[in-house]
């Protein structure tokens, strides 16, 4: 995290906790060759962190490594490395960044070597590319892979037979694979304990995200919130550290809200909240600070975003339920944002625009990601039609620095905000 940002926030307790928990996690990963703790690689959407941890295994999420490589300006080289190994320039850059990182020695975000997986848990949730990604990783690691098929919500609901299908896979495929890879037996009581911790973190996260309904919003629900969802989307859902983090974060955000303060942007506290925006699509990571600052400089605060639902959608009521330890994981996976069909995504954006009293919405369409991007132009028009609010469409990529054009994005954003001004003037005239 940036220095100026930390200064601006006077080293909030939550940041300290987050830094510590991430550092400890990577330290444990680094020590795996000695400790022999089992390691399970899996994906952010549909991650079964509580289950993985209930077997005493450490989760590794290749997307997080890729985005971290993007933020550390390493992704360009990694992508080039993967392309040298025959990967097409056309495909998802997360995959190429990860493959390139492996080819370059598998040095993780904290500068130490990541351990090999004992199991690839291919949670096939909301993204086709996941299937290829782990088929490719299997070529690198030659380790067991277990496939967990999460049916897509094509008709906008998680159908009961799909839920049963998932529960059965958990019972008959995933749990035996975890038992085999870790040497530990399934312990349902432990799993329930972790799920209960998850629900507590989820309550606090939702309170944080929904604090943006206030004016001014105490948080930026996109750029700022990617830090907030980090722990719950990755290795820390269902952990006591996670609970501590979200409790501290909620207290801080509530204090900011009570004091009428806005969010802290990369260069310090944001000034007056001039625009309230909803954002659809993942951020660009290679120029993350610059990207955020463009919004902050204009007084544009993001009050809700869909990307922060990609690893779980909690703000419409879902919580992990210890009373139904496997069924609840099926519900969780089914509801991850990219597993929701286009009409459902549009409903969500419309809902956010209204509930958060936003002035507009921005779609950041990333070249990498068909799962997000295919259909976004239609989403733009549908949301405009249903709300009467025009949207902005910008294009970039996740971790390929070649596709971030600062001047274009800035221009697009500025003219969009001017258009909001003109609309306001028109409406008040």
């Amino acid at each position, binding site marked *: 995290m940036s220095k100026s940002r930390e200064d601006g926030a006077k080293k909030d307790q939550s940041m300290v906790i987050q830094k510590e928990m991430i550092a400890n996690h990577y330290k444990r990963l680094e020590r795996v060759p000695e400790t022999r703790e089992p390691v399970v690689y899996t994906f952010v959407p549909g991650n079964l962190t509580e289950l993985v941890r209930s077997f005493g295994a450490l989760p590794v999420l290749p997307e997080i490594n890729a985005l971290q490589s993007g933020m550390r300006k390493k992704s360009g080289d990694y992508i080039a490395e993967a392309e040298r190994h*025959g*990967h*097409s320039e056309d*495909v998802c850059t997360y995959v190429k960044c990860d493959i390139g990182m492996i080819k370059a020695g598998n040095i993780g975000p904290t500068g130490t070597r990541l351990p090999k997986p004992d199991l690839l848990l291919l949670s*096939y949730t909301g993204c*086709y590319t996941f299937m290829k990604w782990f088929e490719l990783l299997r070529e690198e690691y030659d380790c067991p892979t277990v*496939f967990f098929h999460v049916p897509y919500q094509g008709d906008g609901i998680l159908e009961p037979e799909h839920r049963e299908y998932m529960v059965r896979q958990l019972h008959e495929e995933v749990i035996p694979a975890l038992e085999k890879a870790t040497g530990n037996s399934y312990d349902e009581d432990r799993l329930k304990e972790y799920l209960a911790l998850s629900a507590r973190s989820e309550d606090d996260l939702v309170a944080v995200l929904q604090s943006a309904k206030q004016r001014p919003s105490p948080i930026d629900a996109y750029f700022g919130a990617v830090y907030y969802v980090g722990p719950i989307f990755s290795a820390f859902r269902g952990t006591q550290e996670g609970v501590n983090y979200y409790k501290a974060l909620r207290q801080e955000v509530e204090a900011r809200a009570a004091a009428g303060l806005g969010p802290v942007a990369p260069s310090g506290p944001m000034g007056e909240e001039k625009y309230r925006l909803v954002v659809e699509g993942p951020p660009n990571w290679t120029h993350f600070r610059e990207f955020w600052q463009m919004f902050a400089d204009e007084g544009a605060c993001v009050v809700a975003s869909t990307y922060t639902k990609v690893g779980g959608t909690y703000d419409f009521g879902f919580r992990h339920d210890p009373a139904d330890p496997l069924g609840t994981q099926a519900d969780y996976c089914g509801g991850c944002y990219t597993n929701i069909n286009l009409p459902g995504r549009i409903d969500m954006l419309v809902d956010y625009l209204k509930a958060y009293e936003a002035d507009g919405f921005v779609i950041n369409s990333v070249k990498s990601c068909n799962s997000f991007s295919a*259909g976004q132009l239609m989403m733009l028009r549908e949301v405009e039609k249903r709300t009467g609010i025009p949207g902005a469409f910008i294009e970039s990529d996740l971790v390929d620095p070649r596709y971030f054009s600062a001047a274009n994005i800035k221009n697009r954003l500025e003219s969009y905000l001017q258009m909001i001004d003109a609309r306001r003037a028109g409406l008040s005239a």
Partner: protein
Amino acid sequence: MSRASIAQWAKELYEDLDFSVVRRWRENNPGRKAIGYLPVYAPREILHACGCLPVGIHGGGDRLEIIKGDAFYQSYICHLPRSVIELGQSGRLDMLSGVLFPSTCDVIRNLSGMWKLLYPEHYVRYIDVPQVADPRIATDFWAGELRRLLSDLGELSGHVPGEEELRASLALYNDLRQAIRELYAARSEAPWTVPSEELYLLLRAGELIPPEEFLAKIREYLAAARAEPGRMRDNSRVIVVGSFCEQPPLGLIKTIERAGCYIVDDDFILGNRFLVEDVPLEGDPIEGLAAAFIQSAVKSSVVYEPDPEGKRTLLKAQVEAARADGVIFAAASFCDPALLDRPMLKDGAEKAGIPCIAFKFSENSGQFQQFREQAGTFSDSIKLWGGV
């Protein structure tokens, strides 16, 4: 009919973007429905048993000007969905009562949701094929999906087929796949007699007509091919991989063959031969169809490969079966499934000493010079040195 006249008939169907043949079928079969499906695999047997005409939607290729479709897709998304949207928005698909969207990739997946919004009068179903490795779990899931489709289409068509009717459809499609296999075998045997251009056009025509007619046409074509053997040329034998969804323009297929590469196997329109084995006709027909998918779906980019050796060994096996000299990877630009698979497949092929080349196309590519040169050089190098 002669080979050339069958090919001509097929070409007319292929070029007719108003789908007149489907419209005529509807006029001649009042009350019956035509149901579209996108690539790759859709269980056509169920559509047929419900009295519907299954209609393959494969975009407009290089024959369709994109006027509205580009407003729906960014430049970095493959061409197929924009041309499908174009077909829809220009009213060319208005004879359909529904469209199935198989779980081929996220582009087609998301298009299913767009279709729901654009055509609320259509029946729209996302077909999530089973991916899980355990055959019992996979079969139960898939049988459930098939039953759901059967019940939906039964309601839509007003005709809920009994077991015997379902079995008859299974048997018909078994015969059809067998005939397609024979067609492929005939080409592999004597590619100078069954040019890929003709085979391909026949397959495309088959996507628009009732399966009974398609079956008869293949048999007729095979008889004509036997009666009119072509003249063998000193070409190399290649298999084409990566064109299972967005289809290459016909000109590209012709270019490859004219540049000196006989195509002796390919994955064009792969859905029509997705099941490698016959569907059993005993027992519950839905269970049988489900089990056939689990046990004998062709290895492809759209179904998970549980065998760690699978990707590495696939092309070697295919090349050997087709007695091919090399592999041409021909994938649509921005096609994640084909392009993400390519490094794994290519690695395996190259390790087995199989010469490979790769290029990308778009269904509306109009310039073939570069492909001609690549394929020509490839063929020459195979002939000279057995590889590149």
